[in-house]
């Protein structure tokens, strides 16, 4: 019995520890570590930034988006370069291009030396990047399927599509010249029937450069038919997007004078003209006059004149018109899509 209790305590203690450890680890996702590294680099705490970037890369799980890994490697390359480790910068640029072949350097933010090193690395790193929408539906005869490619040097890229399975013939979808990166609109060959075209496919992307080097990669695709959904109408623009259509003018002194004048009149006329034999007239008259004057003062502060702003009125009208036009377009598109069969293209293999 004692032994069982000990085990129970031990298990509870391990559970508590196990719960505690992931919490502390989860507190530092690669994204957060990268953000801290960026902050350190901004503050020119370069060595600390390098440590954090290395940590972000080392702790990033395999499923970490390639763009994040590429971004971290680029920053590590820049930090290494600034510290004078030019060879390390080259190595990190290579890692960046390998992780994300679509990585580019903004000429505003990256100096010419870094860009020259990066371009040399990019030309030398044999890696072919292919990026396609992971899951999309398109009208098979009118809408092309966009696929982006990134190549190390200018060359030819060919796209071949083949059904998976034995004795399947491939179809050349497109051949295009690519300098660095490009997005190619592919027409998927579905023939007369989307239903018949449904199935598993393999998209082979082949790159060859004039120098003879060649690269190839494949994407596994699942094609299926999908009845078109109607597109949701757009919500009206938020109130915050509208501009004020009127401006409050300055309070009118004339209205103040009018209010006070009326009050004085209301008080004095009964005093002057009323029968003095009647008791209490003066007091009531003064009360009425004071009330009228107070109303005039309140009117002075609250009753400011409103001036319309024609530019803002026109802007708001344009905003409303644009929204209505977009919704009319959506309505027309829904009319066309009603009952149409779309081709759903899903990338089954990781990109």
């Amino acid at each position, binding site marked *: 019995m004692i032994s069982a209790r000990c085990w129970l305590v031990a298990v509870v203690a391990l559970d508590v520890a196990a719960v505690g450890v992931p919490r502390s680890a989860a507190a530092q996702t690669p994204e957060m570590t990268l953000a801290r590294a960026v902050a350190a680099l901004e*503050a020119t705490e370069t060595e600390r930034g390098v440590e954090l970037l290395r940590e972000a890369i080392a702790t990033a799980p395999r499923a970490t988006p390639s763009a994040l890994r590429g971004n971290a490697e680029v920053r590590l390359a820049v930090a290494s370069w*600034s510290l004078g480790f*030019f060879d390390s910068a080259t190595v990190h640029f290579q890692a960046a291009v390998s992780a994300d072949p679509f990585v580019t350097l903004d000429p505003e933010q990256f100096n010419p030396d870094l860009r020259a090193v990066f371009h040399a690395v990019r030309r030398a790193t044999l890696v072919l990047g292919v990026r396609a929408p992971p899951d999309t539906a398109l009208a098979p005869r009118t809408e092309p399927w966009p696929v982006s490619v990134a190549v190390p040097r200018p060359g030819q890229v060919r796209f071949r599509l083949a059904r998976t399975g034995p004795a399947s013939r491939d179809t050349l979808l497109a051949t295009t010249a690519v300098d660095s990166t490009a997005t190619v609109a592919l027409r998927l060959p579905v023939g007369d029937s989307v239903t018949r075209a449904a199935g598993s496919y393999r998209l082979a992307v082949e790159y060859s450069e004039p120098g003879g080097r060649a690269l190839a990669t494949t994407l596994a695709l699942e094609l299926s038919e999908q009845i078109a959904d109607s597109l949701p109408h757009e919500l009206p623009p938020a109130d915050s997007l509208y501009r004020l259509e009127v401006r409050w003018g300055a309070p009118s002194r004339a209205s103040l004078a009018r209010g006070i004048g009326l009050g004085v009149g209301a008080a004095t006329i009964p005093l002057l003209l009323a029968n003095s034999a009647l008791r209490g007239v003066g007091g009531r008259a003064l009360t009425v006059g004071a009330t009228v004057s107070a109303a005039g003062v309140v009117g002075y502060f609250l009753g400011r004149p409103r001036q319309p702003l024609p530019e803002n009125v026109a802007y708001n009208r344009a905003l409303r018109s644009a929204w209505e036009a977009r919704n009319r377009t959506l309505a027309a598109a829904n009319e066309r899509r009603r009952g149409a069969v779309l081709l759903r293209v899903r990338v089954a293999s990781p990109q």
Partner: protein
Amino acid sequence: MRAAVLGFALAGVLAGASQAQDAPNLLRLGAQAYAFAEYGAAQAFLTAGLNPGAGPRDTLWVASVHRLAHILIEERKDSIAAVWLRWALRAQPGLVVDTVNFPPPVQDAFARARTFVAAGTPGDTLTETTWEWVHGRSETPSGLRMERSGVPLSGFVEGIGSLPAGTTQPLAPGSYTVVVSAPDYFFRARVTREVLPGITTVVRFRLRGGGPSSQALGLLYVASTPWAVLYLDGERTDYTPVAARPVAVGTHRMRLERPGYTPFDTLVTVGRDQRLRLGTIRLRAVGSQ
């Protein structure tokens, strides 16, 4: 007869026998071919004979530089002539231009080359340059190599890419700026050198004292957005970002400059072993508030 002799000698040079010939003889043959307007042959002789490691840099050598420049300018290869002249003026800064025997285009080319070279680069005194004149012909590839020096050196060629120590980077003839760094030795240098047609330029860097610098230094860290050129005491150093850049102890004028942006000027005082971190300086576009 003379042309035949020249042709025979040229065949020897082209066949690679120039190693056997001594440089002054090649320059004399070049002078003869030049006198006969046999420019092709003269160019081959002169190119092979100008190797500064194979003969003295005497009047014959200086005259040969003029002849080669003249031939190249005549052949409308002005850019190649400019490279040769910059190289010659770097090798022989006191070279006097012959204004009597050579036409004004040659003199102008010399003047431009002297202006280019006169600016100098901060790393000149720390750099030793040699040339591998193995072939010395324009058909063979030209290149640049940074010699290994026993310490981990890291370098790159501006506008080209990295230059690992001990590896020859093939380059077209021209002037190139090499940036080299040995962070463990607080060493960073920037030098401009010429790459001649068919010849490999070899640069060696002398690290002060052969070990970590004994000079009182601090380290400067500065970044900017967008990138800019960093000047210290009026001397161009690096592009930003710069980290752990060795700077002599004391106060320095610092400037960040980028076309289209207002320059950023400040005074920085660096203490011994201090890591002075200035953070990221945001440059203002010209005309912005």
